[in-house]
């Protein structure tokens, strides 16, 4: 089987964060960890090309995945594999999206990353197998990846025993009795000593390690970002008031303050009366400009990023966060003020 393997700029040997903005490209033959992977896959399979993209570029240009999969198909790919991405979030998201795009195009696909990689949720049901925490576990990670890839190539479904990871879908259905009766039954079970009975297994939430403080605010570029449903008056791009599936960006060039009638909040989770009376309450542009003039901050970024945090799924919120971080980093921003509502 002809296989195309995806790695990021780092594992392609192009450099670290300084090269994270590199765009997508296809290179002949295996590269980096692909060489070892090729030998593990044996003589029946060939890594015909390596698909590469910088992590920031991939995180801020969703279309990179479909583009690379199209190029891979032109190169004769019969299967696409991506990673291992370990716990690297943007790389994991890219691997998951590549695998999902390949599956969408009808190709067998597989990604590899650590179960705590925040990109895992982007796989959209495409198979992902477990890797180690860091590249120090490269050897064992590649072995597991190759074994699983051989199964996928043979058309087999992967299970947890093959190292398959990722959330299991929960779907709606009708219970025998109504929720009130079930709650009373649960009370009786609980009073009878059953401490495990529940219909909702409790989720584990990941912990985000804060970035290091910026060295000198007076020399840094600041961005204003918000989940307050903050948009130009009239909401030209129809940002959702609840369950947002997208984020928007608008220019702040030439503006000294967020004036009523010019900006508004479409957030459906609180009364927007006071936000609309003075939009600076959601996006503190007036104060940011004052601080810029005083020299307290180096410069204010020329646009703001916004979404609506109201019933938004964790998967979408996580994606917005990674896309914002990559976007801001690519534009040379050192600090962001996220006004939460």
């Amino acid at each position, binding site marked *: 089987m002809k296989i195309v393997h995806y790695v990021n700029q780092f594992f392609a040997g192009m450099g670290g964060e300084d090269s994270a903005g590199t765009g997508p490209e296809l290179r002949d033959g295996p590269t980096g960890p692909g060489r070892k992977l090729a030998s593990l896959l044996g003589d029946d399979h060939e890594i015909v090309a390596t698909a590469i993209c910088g992590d920031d570029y991939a995180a801020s240009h969703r279309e990179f995945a479909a583009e690379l999969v199209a190029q891979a198909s032109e190169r004769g790919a019969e299967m696409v594999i991506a990673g291992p991405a370990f716990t690297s979030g943007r790389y994991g998201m890219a691997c998951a999206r590549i695998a999902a795009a390949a599956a969408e195009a009808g190709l067998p696909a597989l990604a590899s990353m650590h179960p705590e990689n925040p990109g895992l949720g982007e796989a959209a049901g495409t198979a992902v197998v477990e890797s180690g925490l860091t590249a120090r576990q490269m050897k064992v990670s590649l072995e597991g990846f190759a074994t699983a890839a051989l199964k996928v190539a043979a058309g087999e479904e992967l299970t947890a025993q093959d190292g398959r990871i990722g959330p299991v879908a929960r779907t*709606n259905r009708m219970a025998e009795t109504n929720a009130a009766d079930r709650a009373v039954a*649960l*009370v009786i079970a609980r009073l009878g000593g059953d401490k495990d009975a*529940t219909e909702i297994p409790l989720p584990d939430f990941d912990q985000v390690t804060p970035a290091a403080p910026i060295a000198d605010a007076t020399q840094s570029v600041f961005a204003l970002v918000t989940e307050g449903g903050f948009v130009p008056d009239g909401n030209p791009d129809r940002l959702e008031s609840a369950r947002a599936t997208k984020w928007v960006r608008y220019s702040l060039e030439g503006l000294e303050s967020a004036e009523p009638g010019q900006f508004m909040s479409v957030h459906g989770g609180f009364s927007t009366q006071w936000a609309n009376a003075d939009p600076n309450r959601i996006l503190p542009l007036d104060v940011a400009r004052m601080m810029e003039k005083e020299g307290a901050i180096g410069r204010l970024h020329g646009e703001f990023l916004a979404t609506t945090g109201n019933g938004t799924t*964790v998967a979408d919120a996580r994606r917005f966060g990674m896309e914002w971080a990559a976007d801001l980093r690519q534009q040379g921003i050192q600090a962001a003020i996220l006004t939460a509502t």
Partner: protein
Amino acid sequence: VNAEVGLTRVVHVVRELDLGARTTYSAGHLTVCETSVRDLLRDPALAETRLMCASPGDSARIVGVLDAIQPCSKGPGGGGVFPGLLGPAMPVGRGSTHVLRGAAVLAAGYLPRAQEAIIDMSGPAAALSPLAATHNLVVEFTPAEDAPWEDVDAALRRGLVKVAAHLAEAALDAEPDAVEELDEPGSPAANGKPRVGVILNLQTQGKFKDVFVYGRSLSGGLPTVISPCELDDGAVVSGQFGHPALKNPTYLHQTHPVVAALRASDDVELAALILCPEPVNQADKELVSAHAARLCKQLKLDAAIATKEGGGNADADVSLKMDRLEEEGIAAVGILAEMAGRDGTGPPLVVPPTKATALVSTGNYDERMILPAVERALGSPRIALLDQDSTDEIELPVAAIYCAQSTLGWGRLTCAENA
């Protein structure tokens, strides 16, 4: 008759609904006088009101549903039900109350902050709304020019309770289908059974997202204990129009399913009803939750069932209370909806409990469903959310179906892992 404590519920079942010259009730047939009802709804904030009927099985969709109320009356003139809005703000829940079971009066149309709620009277979504199983008198409205939206909201709330009382008055002299004796907590009959409380979190998050107890918002207050029989008499009236699937309309307070399930239980006693505000900030949520758990302790409860109204932030109002209850040695059960994303793979809860674990699920809010085209639309000719005609085939998340996931627990919708 429990003249001292408790309530006698005199039930008249509605099996047929239409508009006519006089408001009458006879042998399950409710006829509504359009002129009388529109007179009751008259208010300077409303330019016009229109009445329509929608019955179970109709090929009809109600769009933009606001509140829904079960008709009830304690006698001519409307006094004693919906205290603080219709009658004087004095404790209710004793004597006898006539209810029209199987009927509801509801308002549908635009209000600010009201997320469009949908009821299909037939088809796959009908099983997901308690108001698809009732004969509904639907009030459409046109606000008066220049009327503030707050006044429109208040006018509808006052109008709906008047109409609800008016409809039930038609049945005062009718032979009832059932007479139900509802005890107050502390009845000797319950002696020795485990004491279970109901914690009813009421959303208190500003205009159009508020719930009224004796006509007042609980906003800024601490939890309070009332008799479940006060709910039956309309002491709690909803003015909360966000999160359609998670909405608890007045109808569900009047017929509170967890209260009903505990009343029906042979194993445990319905021992208390604790009303709690749902504040907007974390510190207030913590205070209210800790205070509610202390009240439960003082009431010597063995267990409590907590419910919520509203979206993700209100998970905290249930989870914090469950954790504080468990710390007080009281078994805690929560009823929550899941918000696990369109494919059901996301974390199901926004704020899970950290000590308590016993949860009932009312299904995944984000899962989508397709509703077939219908012949007739009420409330609004267009669905703004989808930019489609209200009669079209539509695709929606469960989140948009009125009360589909109400944690007051009327429904059978739940969620589980695929096998």
